[in-house]
């Protein structure tokens, strides 16, 4: 048998096109990490005028000479902002920059605008608005609200999610108000600018966390109180026969909802406290895990309390706005329960990650591990095409060149000859895959990120489990190969049946391409088709999409491509699909294909 396999290996390797294919594959594989780096840094490929002080200065001067004073305001403010950060050595990735750069820009914008009124360039606010620049108007409003000149004042941390700078009114419609604001701003602008500058220069992440912590503590305390009240109210009502059942249901529902809200609040509190204790860097992985996953999932958890039946049925659309037809109350309960368990899963994984210093790939700016795993999936799918070509050619060329005759007249059973072909093709594929595994590992380690050895976290049986990442990635690769092997085996089956290379190669590639369309269709339509579709083989042409967890609903992960996929197919959409079902189907279908191939090959007659 060894000798037969050796023969088949020689045939595969010595076919001239094999070497070309391997070279193409190697180049593509090596290009993957480079491409990934390029995609993630695509902004760097363009000239960065926004960070070019000379260019900004010249543009401001141009605008002034052309009388485009709004442009002059913008460029002047920007160049001042740029210089301020540069002079104080504050990088644009620092907390200070991210939190306060917009605030500082609006302060400088206001100062520049005000100076134009002072030196008489603008006579009136109409004059100002005529050369309208909505950006500048909105910056002005920002400053006004920050100076407490507007009632709807928001926190100035514009970098933070939720800090809206939407104008509360239209400057055009209220020129008087705008004029009034401008005059108030101009009175206080100098002191305001220096207060913002001081705030930046005296920024301390610890005090930042302190503020966050006290907010979270206050919130948790308030929820704790309400939850306890609701619980008491329900307990008191529970055994009181004079209270109607629907009233009791309402009370219970409220108590449960508040308990969930409290659970969320406690989790947020836990996370922020941890950040403060560790003095975690701003936008570091711990920060991202807490604010990206825990606080958001906690909020979601707090919303997953089920309404009581009466309230729900009074207005079923309130909770099922996504569907045309309202869910029944039972469906609604199931839905809410699912949302709740997803939120808990996300929190659970994030907490495990923080407790064990095991960053989730999505919490990292650049995750080499995530890129590596994504790229291996791509490499396997490319290698599948090559293997379809190699496998189809390997058998079909024996017929088309007539060598099949001299092959089959040897004292070896036909099944052994076919088996040797299968083994040789499998060996070549494994070597190619292992090569891609190693090359991609090294390149991602060098080029992308250093989290290659960080364990993968899986959610199994309601708790987080750490799994060795090198091993898991290898298993992922083998799983992908098992699924893809269907196409390769199909090519061999076709070659045995029709004895022509072209169709034996074209058809499996076509099926492979159709596979992903069918997969997307199944995912898109599975809410319409029902859950049964997750038990069929159709959605499992590839498994990547289904290897995800609830954290992906909150923090899109890692590199460019996988974050796109995570956005298109969040966990809540694909949660019903299981890679295990796909693998079982793949094994069953592969066994069927292989049996058919062996039957066909051993029974066939060589007529020509």
């Amino acid at each position, binding site marked *: 048998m060894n*000798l037969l396999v050796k023969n088949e290996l020689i045939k595969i390797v010595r076919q001239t096109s094999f070497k070309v294919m391997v070279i193409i594959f190697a180049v593509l594989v090596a290009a993957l990490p480079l491409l990934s780096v390029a995609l993630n840094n695509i902004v760097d490929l363009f000239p960065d005028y926004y960070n070019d002080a000379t260019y900004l200065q010249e543009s401001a001067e141009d605008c002034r000479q052309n009388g485009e004073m709004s442009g002059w305001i913008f460029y002047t403010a920007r160049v001042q902002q740029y210089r301020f950060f540069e002079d104080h050595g504050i990088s644009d990735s620092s907390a200070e920059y991210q939190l306060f750069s917009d605030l500082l820009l609006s302060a400088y914008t206001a100062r520049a605008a005000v100076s134009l009124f002072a030196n008489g360039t603008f006579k009136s606010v109409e004059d100002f608005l005529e050369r309208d620049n909505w950006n500048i108007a909105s910056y002005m409003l920002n400053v006004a609200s920050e100076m407490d000149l507007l009632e709807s004042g928001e926190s100035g941390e514009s970098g933070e999610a939720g800090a809206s700078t939407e104008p509360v009114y239209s400057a055009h419609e209220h020129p008087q108000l705008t004029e009034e604001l401008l005059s108030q701003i101009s009175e206080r602008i100098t002191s305001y600018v220096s207060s913002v500058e001081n705030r930046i220069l005296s920024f301390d992440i610890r005090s930042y966390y302190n503020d966050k912590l006290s907010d979270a503590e206050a919130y948790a305390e308030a929820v704790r109180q309400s939850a306890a009240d609701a619980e008491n109210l329900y307990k008191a009502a529970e055994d009181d026969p004079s209270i109607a059942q629907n009233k009791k249901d309402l009370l219970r529902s409220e108590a449960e909802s508040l308990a969930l809200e409290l659970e969320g609040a406690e989790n947020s509190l836990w996370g922020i406290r941890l950040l403060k204790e560790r003095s975690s860097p701003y936008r570091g992985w711990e920060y991202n895990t807490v604010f990206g996953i825990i606080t958001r999932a906690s909020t979601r958890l707090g919303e997953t309390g089920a309404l009581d039946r009466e309230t729900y049925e009074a207005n079923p659309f309130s909770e099922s706005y996504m569907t045309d037809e309202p869910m029944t109350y039972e469906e609604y309960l199931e839905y809410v329960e699912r949302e709740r368990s997803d939120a808990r899963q996300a929190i659970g994984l994030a907490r495990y990650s923080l407790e064990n210093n095991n960053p989730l790939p999505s919490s990292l700016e650049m995750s080499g591990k995530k890129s590596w795993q994504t790229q291996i999936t791509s490499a396997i799918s490319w290698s599948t095409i090559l293997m379809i070509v190699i496998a189809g050619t390997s058998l079909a060329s024996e017929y088309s060149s*007539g060598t099949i*005759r*001299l*092959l*089959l*007249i040897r*004292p070896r059973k036909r099944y052994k000859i076919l088996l040797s072909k299968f083994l040789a093709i499998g060996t070549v594929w494994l070597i190619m895959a292992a090569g891609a595994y190693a090359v991609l590992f090294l390149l991602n380690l060098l080029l992308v990120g250093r989290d290659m050895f960080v364990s993968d976290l899986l959610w199994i049986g309601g708790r987080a489990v750490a799994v060795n990442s090198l091993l898991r990635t290898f298993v992922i690769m083998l799983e992908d190969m098992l699924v893809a092997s269907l196409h390769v085996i199909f090519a061999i089956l076709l070659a045995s049946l029709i004895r022509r290379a072209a169709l034996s190669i074209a058809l499996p590639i076509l099926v492979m391409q159709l596979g992903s369309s069918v997969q997307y269709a199944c995912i898109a339509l599975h809410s319409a088709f029902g859950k049964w579709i997750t038990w069929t083989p159709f959605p499992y042409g590839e498994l990547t999409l289904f290897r995800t967890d609830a954290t992906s609903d909150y923090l899109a992960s890692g590199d460019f491509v996988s974050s796109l996929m995570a956005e298109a197919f969040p966990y809540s959409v694909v949660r019903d699909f299981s890679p295990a079902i796909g693998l079982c189907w793949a094994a069953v279908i592969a066994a069927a294909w292989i049996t058919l191939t062996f039957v066909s090959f051993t029974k066939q007659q060589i007529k020509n």
Partner: protein
Amino acid sequence: MNSQTAPVLSIRNLSKTLGKNRILSGITLDVRPGEIFGFLGPNGSGKTTTIKLMLGLLRIDEGSISICGHDVSTDFEAAMENIGGIIENPEMYKYLTGRENLELYARMYGKPDRERISELVRLVRLEARINDKISKYSLGMKQRLGIAQALLNRPKLLVLDEPTNGLDPAGIKELRDILRELAHTESVAVFISSHQLAELDLMCDRVGIIDRGVLLDTMTIDQVRNAGEGGLTTVSIEVESGRPVPAELAETFRYEGPGLLKGQTEREKIPETVAALCAAGFRIYSVTSLKHSIEDVFLSLTSEYTPAGGGGTPGYAPKPSSPSAGVYVPGAAAPGGTSAGVYVPGAAPEGPAGEQTPAPGVDVPEGASAGTPSADFGKEENEK
């Protein structure tokens, strides 16, 4: 070698249908060690099909083939250990060198024996080109390499399908020498199919003639030579022209042309004939005994039934206008169950070679080989 030697190849009542076409009907023949058996027939007569059945490329519908006592259907591996062959053109892996191809095939028999490979390369005289890729080989070189690969396992039976295709005259002679040497010094039985009559004439010990799937006859080459009518030898005598044929010879000899007497006589009477001519004052320049070639036999056996090129109709159906050509039995139960008629040559009282062809057709009973011509010829051949 003696008559008791078990046949290397034993085909019994072999029939084969492909699709709707009945390709072979009741072929029965034996080939003994050291014998070169020529398998002769027009294109499409079933030669290659027979060979493919022998090598397990086609499934045997009916009858059996055994090689060195191993049935091809039931004991495939053992049967193939003893056979080597080329089928149609010997197509090998073009992207490998000649030597690599031989190594590849050698591995299918077990550990490749480099010494054996070199020996075969020398035998087929490919030393100079053995490390070139097959894609650079001429057809003749491929044929020679094909013979080398067929001999890798030191087979007891060598099966060659049209091996002289693409060989030049020198190549054909070389092949002939190689085969004779193998057969006569190593006792390899050679089963060689061809539609080129002249080749077999010079090469074979025995020939079988097949047409439209029916084995019409098997005979030794001596029998071919002497296949005249009634054991008479045809003699042509070159003499000076103009003299009348002497009365005692007038019954048998007459002028075929100016100065060329031709007639049939018993071999023993040739000296007397010459003496009689001398006595009559003839000046004799040459006396030639005209031997039959395979071609004569082949054409006489097949001309009645075979349009040029052969092939075509299923079964073996003679033209209705040739009453002497055996009996066509429409709808006779053909082995394999096709509804096409079956030609039963033995049923013809005065077939073209009727006396020598008792029943190579469908009705030969299993185990009746002792009485078949092939067995007898084999004996003669062995006794020589």
